[in-house]
């Protein structure tokens, strides 16, 4: 009898023990993503006392490095963070992927299902992000500007798509610069420089979606008239006039492009550089959130509701005008003004959704800021290949950005309760980009590829595939010209070629700096696993800091030299060996580890909300 009681007592204790563990769970999770937040810079600024709120969070909770994905590209990393899986399972391997069954590159952010100017897109992501699981479990879920969430998917709440949302042309960016000056040879090579005639009235066009007419690809255009007065310009578009002075940004301007029966609406802002000679810069024309040509949010009306509450906003995946800055068409100051516009809009979105989140009993809010990444890409002062002084040279623009983010974090910390798990994290860190490496030229030089080195040739036009063992596409990816997989594949013993290339790459030295270019090159099978490996590259190149693949490499082009100086204003980057560029992870909880990987984040989010972790996810909950 006594024994029996004892058994019951044990059962009761065990069950109550379990329920106690359940109760330890949080009611809510707030994930704040900050693209490119680097642990080195963060620590340095914290030590200098310039990030008091990040300091407070680290002291009351935790601050650890978050190991990034192979390779450390934003689309790969954010997808890994969202799904808890590696690229072999989630199917995003690089910014650029090769079109299956061809040697042609394509963007891996979203698949355009209907060619030129198409408005049907599909996602490449093949595993479930955590918001799909919370949605299935009926937990209020809102996701704002998380990269690679275009096209938008259904959630139990709101979703606004981030990186991957195209502009009105179906591109990822594209400014237009109007000038009365004569065009220089350099201008002619740039993306969109329009020559106008100086006069009281300047008649020109805005360039909209592409379409096909009689076999030709043409721009759909919409007229723009600019009336110059003594000290300002009136920009007339679609029957509305907007006045701006030199040195000022206009407010949002709406434009309609008539293509067939449909009108595609776009919005842009103009910056007037000077009245005489007339010079004006306009941002990439964004999809109008009030009347989008393709959905950019779930529910589809959410993008419009947001406008009612916070005004018009940048909708493009990567709206920061880095190209204009890199091409010298806008100054640092003007670029930073544009960054401030984006940040302001994003903060308004945050506080709107955070207010709603605060009122909820249960819920998930995942919110990503990414101007941080773009500011660091173009304002990176450190030169790792030249300097050996300790510490990072931080550009004032970068410093200011982080100080502002610290203020923002302070306000968040003041308002979250104990039932909320807070994770502040980044997808990767940062380093300098000083030397540019053309992997295809290197493959030719080493005899792995047979091609005529022609700098004008595009998409491997000059390659003799019958004598080519490997080719590079994207920023860290080498593919074997495999028999049966590639259209003109020749390699039967893939492993052998992979080993040969890796050995050569790891031995590659830069004659100028006398340094090793590649830290390690990884066979895909060493760092990835899963059913979609066949879509990805065979080798992931882990560059040493200071080096990055050339843009020519990314699109199947050649440079004359294997390694050249990077003389562009895009001087910071992170497309190196993942070991050098981990991201950060802050939490208001004490994490039970001092190192974590990106695949741990999705399991942590689900665990905190008391949901089972799907088998597919590779990481572990960090709050156990």
């Amino acid at each position: 009898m006594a024994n029996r009681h004892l058994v019951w007592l044990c059962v009761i204790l065990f069950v109550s023990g379990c329920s106690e563990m359940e109760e330890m769970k949080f009611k809510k999770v707030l994930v704040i993503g900050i693209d490119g937040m680097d642990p080195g810079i963060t620590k340095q600024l914290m030590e200098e006392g310039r990030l008091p709120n990040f300091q407070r969070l680290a002291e009351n909770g935790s601050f650890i490095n978050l190991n990034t994905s192979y390779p450390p590209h934003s689309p790969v990393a954010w997808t890994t963070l969202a799904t808890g899986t590696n690229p072999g399972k989630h199917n995003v391997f690089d910014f650029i992927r090769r079109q299956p069954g061809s040697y042609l590159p394509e963007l891996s952010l979203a698949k355009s299902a209907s060619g030129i100017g198409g408005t049907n897109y599909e996602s490449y992501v093949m595993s479930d992000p955590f918001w799909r699981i919370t949605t299935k479990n009926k937990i209020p879920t809102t996701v704002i500007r998380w990269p690679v969430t275009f096209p938008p998917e259904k959630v139990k709440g709101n979703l606004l798509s981030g990186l991957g949302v195209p502009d009105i042309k179906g591109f990822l960016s594209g400014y237009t610069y109007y000038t009365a000056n004569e065009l220089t040879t350099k201008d002619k090579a740039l993306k969109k420089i329009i020559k106008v005639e100086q006069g009281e009235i300047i008649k020109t066009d805005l360039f909209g979606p592409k379409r096909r007419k009689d076999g030709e690809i043409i721009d759909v255009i919409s007229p723009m008239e600019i009336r110059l007065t003594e000290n300002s310009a009136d920009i007339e578009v679609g029957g509305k006039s907007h006045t701006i002075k030199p040195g000022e940004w206009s407010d949002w301007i709406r434009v309609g492009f008539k293509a067939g029966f449909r009108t595609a609406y776009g919005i842009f802002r103009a910056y007037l550089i000077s009245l005489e000679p007339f010079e004006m810069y306009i941002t990439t024309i964004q999809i109008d959130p009030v009347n989008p040509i393709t959905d950019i949010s779930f529910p589809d009306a959410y993008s419009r509701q947001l406008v009612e509450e916070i005004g018009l906003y940048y909708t493009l995946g990567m709206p920061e005008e880095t190209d204009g800055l890199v091409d010298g068409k806008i100054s640092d100051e003007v670029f930073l003004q544009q960054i401030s516009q984006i940040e302001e809009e994003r903060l308004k979105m945050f506080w709107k959704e955070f207010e709603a989140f605060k009122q909820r009993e249960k819920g998930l809010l995942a919110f990503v800021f990414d101007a941080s990444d773009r500011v660091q890409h173009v304002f990176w002062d450190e030169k790792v290949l030249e300097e050996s002084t300790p510490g990072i040279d931080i550009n004032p623009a970068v410093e200011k950005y982080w100080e502002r983010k610290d203020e923002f974090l302070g306000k968040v910390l003041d308002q979250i309760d104990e039932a909320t798990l807070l994770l502040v994290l980044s997808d990767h860190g940062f380093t300098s980009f000083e030397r540019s490496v053309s992997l295809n030229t290197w493959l030719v030089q080493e005899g792995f590829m047979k091609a005529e080195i022609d700098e004008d040739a595009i998409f491997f036009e000059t390659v003799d595939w019958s004598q080519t063992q490997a080719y590079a596409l994207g920023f860290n990816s080498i593919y074997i010209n495999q028999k049966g997989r590639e259209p003109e594949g020749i390699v039967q013993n893939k492993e052998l070629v992979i080993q040969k290339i890796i050995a050569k790459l790891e031995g590659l030295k830069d004659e100028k700096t006398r340094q090793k270019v590649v830290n390690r090159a990884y066979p895909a099978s060493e760092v990835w696993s899963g059913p979609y490996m066949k879509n990805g590259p065979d080798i992931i190149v882990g560059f040493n800091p200071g080096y990055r693949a050339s843009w020519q490499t990314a699109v199947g082009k050649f440079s004359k030299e294997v390694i050249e100086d990077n003389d562009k204003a895009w001087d910071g980057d992170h497309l190196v060996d993942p070991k050098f560029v981990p991201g950060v992870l802050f939490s208001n909880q004490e994490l039970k580890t001092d190192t974590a990987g990106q695949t741990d984040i999705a399991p942590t989010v689900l665990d905190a909300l008391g949901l089972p972790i799907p088998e597919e996810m590779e990481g572990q909950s960090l709050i156990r």
Partner: protein
Amino acid sequence: MSHLKELEDKSIFIIREAKNKFKNPAVLWSIGKDSTMLLWLCKKAFFGKIPFPVVHIDTGYKFKEIYEFRDNMAKEWGLDLRIVKNEEALAQGMGPDKGKFECCNTLKTEALKLAVKEHKIDALLLGIRRDEHGIRNKERYFSPRDKQFRWKLARKKEGGDSPYESLQDTEMSGWNLFATDFGPEADHVRVHPILHWTELEVWQYVKQENIPMVDLYLSKKGKRYRSIGCECCCMPVDSEADDIDKVIEELKKTTTREREGRAQEKEHLMQKLRSLGYM
């Protein structure tokens, strides 16, 4: 030798080869420009008289101009014309309203199968050209078909490292070497004497030889047909070309545009890729 003469010589060589190597060749005539030019070449190959049957698959839905032209030419050129119709399907009401694919399949493909069987055709000459469609890029001059009319690319064999051998190795056309023996598995062989011609060259040759053509190809009220067949399934294109010279001029413009279009497409893709800031 002029360019058109070279094209003509090659076609005539293939036509004669087909006559020599097969017992019962026949030529398929849709009355369109390509097959009408093919008939002209057959006439030339055998000095004015085509020594094998000319088969016309009649769907019953062709333009009336086509029927008139067919009957006139058959008389003028002394053709051994065999008109084949899938009477059974037509009697059961087959037509374009039953679905385009279904209609084409029944009234064209099935009728052709009947013709091949009925007339014991072992080689069928057709006027297809490589520039018509991407899928025809891979076609050969002599191309075997099995009983289901599928393109017969390989046959089983004993020994060796593969159980199949290819029936379609690259033709050594530069040497005038064409495989014509495809063994018993090939039901019949398709012969494509004008595979290497382009649409523009066809019209240039039509002009040079003054080959009669159905006038549907010429513009009336701003529209003309670029290809003809059944009345219900053909759409005219906008065109002011009301004689052959103008057709040639029009095609010269469009072919350059098509070529420019392909280059443009590459440029478009490159622009799109480079719109990623990292470029």
